[in-house]
Each structure stands twice: as C-alpha cells, then as structure tokens.
C-alpha cells in the first residue's frame, strides 16, 4: 500500500537524505478514516461497546507510536527486512501494526 501514489500523497510521503518520510498529521487523518467502516458498524449497534471503541482508539495510538518510533520513515514501517538498509537499532524498534 505504501507504493500506491494516492496513499503516498495522502500521507505526505517525501524524500529526504535518501529516505522516504511520511507526515504525521496526514498519516493520523488516514488512520482515522480507516476506522470509519468499523465505526459505522459500531454506530449501527443498539448499545455500542466501549471496549470496541477503546480498541479502535488504541489501534490508532499504537500506529502513531510505531510511526514515531521509526522517525516516520516509510521504509522502516515496511519492516526490518527493508531493502533500503535500515540499521538494526531502528529495525528493532519496529513493531507490527495491530490487527
């Protein structure tokens, strides 16, 4: 998905010193939009579950924390086996995004 031009544009992906970076605010917008289908299903329930809401909230927080931990580098978000030669310390910081 990170190779999709629309996604890259929406998240403000740009090159600096041979690395691709995203823009946190735009990435956050995207994450919020991506929970919309879940939110829609939740809003359709007679009594929306607070647990489900908290899970959504945590999902976004975790995704933002992960992005921050890798310095908003897209290649590191792709995982430690990145072809762009991420250093090991940075790679260890990468955690899988929550389901």
């Amino acid at each position, binding site marked *: *998905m*990170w*190779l*999709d*031009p*629309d*996604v*890259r*544009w*929406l998240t*403000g992906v*740009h090159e600096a010193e041979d690395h691709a970076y995203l823009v946190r*605010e*735009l990435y*956050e*917008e*995207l*994450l*919020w*939009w*991506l*929970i*919309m*289908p879940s*939110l*829609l*299903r*939740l*809003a*359709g329930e007679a009594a*929306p579950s*607070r647990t489900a*809401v*908290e899970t*959504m*909230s945590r*999902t976004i927080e975790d*995704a933002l924390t992960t992005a921050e931990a890798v310095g908003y580098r897209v290649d590191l*978000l*792709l*995982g430690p086996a990145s072809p762009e030669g991420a250093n090991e310390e940075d790679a260890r910081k990468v955690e*899988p*995004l*929550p*389901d």
Partner: protein
Amino acid sequence: MVYNNRYGETHGTIDFSVAYADKGANQLRQQRIREGLGLSDAASVTLAWRDSLTGLNYLRRTKDLAERGLTLDLHAYQCHVFLDWRELYSTAEQPWDRLSDQLNGQGVANLEDALVNLELQPAHDALRAQLEPGLVRLFADLAEHPRALAAGTDTETEAKRTEFFETAWARCESFLRLGQKAYLALGGNEASGAKPANPALLRAAFRERLRAAMRIPAVEALFPAPWTVAARRMLPSPSPQLTATAMWGPVLGWCVLELLAESIDTTNPERVALDLFDRLRLREPFAQAFTALGFEARSMACRCPRQSWAAYRGRCRQAARRAGRSHGGLGWTSCAFACLVARSGCSLADWGT
C-alpha cells in the same frame, strides 16, 4: 495532414478534393472525401483514425462523414497528421457507433478503453446522482439535526427524513443494479462465482446503514478522549473541521460502495469493494462528485507546507503514471479521497505490507 499556418483559430470542413485534370474527358474533376477514402455506405460502420502527433484516436460514423465531410477546429499553428484510417463494424459487444456519438469528435488515447468507459457510464452517472450535493446536504442536515434520529418527535424533520431516504434509496438501488450488471459483464465474480443479491431486497440494509452513519458523531462521546483535529477532519463529528457536505459525502460514498460489495459477495465485501473500485473505474465519478462537494477548497499549503503544490503535484503525477493510472484533469484531493473511500475496508494491518 491538416495545418493552420497563422496566429488565430480556424474552422472548416474537408469534403471535396482540389480539382484535378481528367485527361480522358478533358475536364477538371473533384472527389468527395467518401470516394477518396473509399468509405462504406453501411449505417453501422464507423470510421476510426489516429493523429500521429498526439496519439489520440478519433471516431466518426462513415455515413455522417460521407454526407457532411470532416469538420475540424484548429488553434493557432495546430497541426494534425491523421493515419491508420480503418472501418469498424458495430456489434452489441463493441458499439463503436454509440461511442462515436458519445465522443462527438473528441479524441481518446485508447478506443478499447473508451468503449469500456462507455459501458460503465450508466453506473458512473448513478453514482454521481447518489453523491449529488443537494442530496448530501440534506443528509448532512438530517444527521446534524439533534432530533433527526428520534422517530415521531418532529413532523417536519420526520417528513424531511422520509423524503431523503426515499430519494437516496431510489438512487442507490439504481446504482446497485447498474453496478452489479457492469461488474458481472466485466467478469468481476468469475473467481468467487457468487450470485449477487437482488437490489430491491437491500432497502432495509441501506436505511439501517444510513441511520448508523448518522449516529457516528454521537459515538465520539464513547471514546476515552475527544477526537483530535485530524479525526474531526475525516469523520463527522459534533465539531467538524470541514463543511458538512465535505464531511458527509465520503461517508455516503462508502455506504453505497460497501452495500454494492456486500450485494455481490457477503463473505468478503472489503476485497470486493476494492475490486469494484478498480474494475468499475469508480475513481473518476467519485472524484468528480467530491470535487462538486467542495473538496478542492482544502488548502494545499497546509497539506504540503515545505514545497510548492505544483512541484508536488508533478511528482505525484509521475508516480501515478508509473503506476499506470491517469487522473485526467481532476483535482488530486478528490482523486486521492476517492481512493481512500475504496481503501476504507482495508485493515490497518495492511499498512505494514
């Protein structure tokens, strides 16, 4: 070859050749274009040709060309080199005559591609009608009305709500029918073999979906903390960051796309939604609808503060070309947002791949 060798526009019709000497009859003769090109008289035949300078392809019914000649408008110093003249025979699968009528003299990069777009046009029109600004505005008004969801509390609101649902459903049903038809025609369900549900049976599901969407602002209160500015720029909220139509249009767009996907395959609607978006070429009608809803009013400066918008757009266009896509003259915000609507069903986990 046609050339306008002056600084100014020109308009003309090519029908008769210059005179040439018929030495046998000892007189000057002229040929009409139909004779020169040896055109068929059959009504179903369409003539195609290509401008080798621009790569654009043109169509014209041979009957029209034979009767009226080739009419052209040229800008200052504009030139055409028309090659590859060929006759195309219209069939039910390849209605070149209808495509010629629709193009009305406009050139296209790929005729087969234009033919697919022609077949998809009814579904695209239905989608645009679904996201028509007046309807989205009514949706937004109702959703943001504090009593809109409580049945029977306000006669006027109740009447507006009923009117909205009836109109929205009529348009949605039309989109579902046309979308299903186009998807099947393009072999969309070949892998799954699933049989689409009858759209008429989805009325209640559509109504429930819209009602759920209208409750999204209320769900914010359940979150442990108030939504951030980023969230309020993307999702309907009691204190939104964008205009009501810009907030609610994409939500309505997602509702109908997801319903169409579910009507085709209930087991994997997210995958089908994305497939529908690509196969039915929904990017353009979505983007046009979002443009009409005011998406281009968003400040580009705040989106890419460290570089000029033009330069950034140029790079994005290059990236899009590499990905084999064309966005035409549509705004990038709306194009990208249309893409986002389609990607809504993707799990966040996909972002690590």
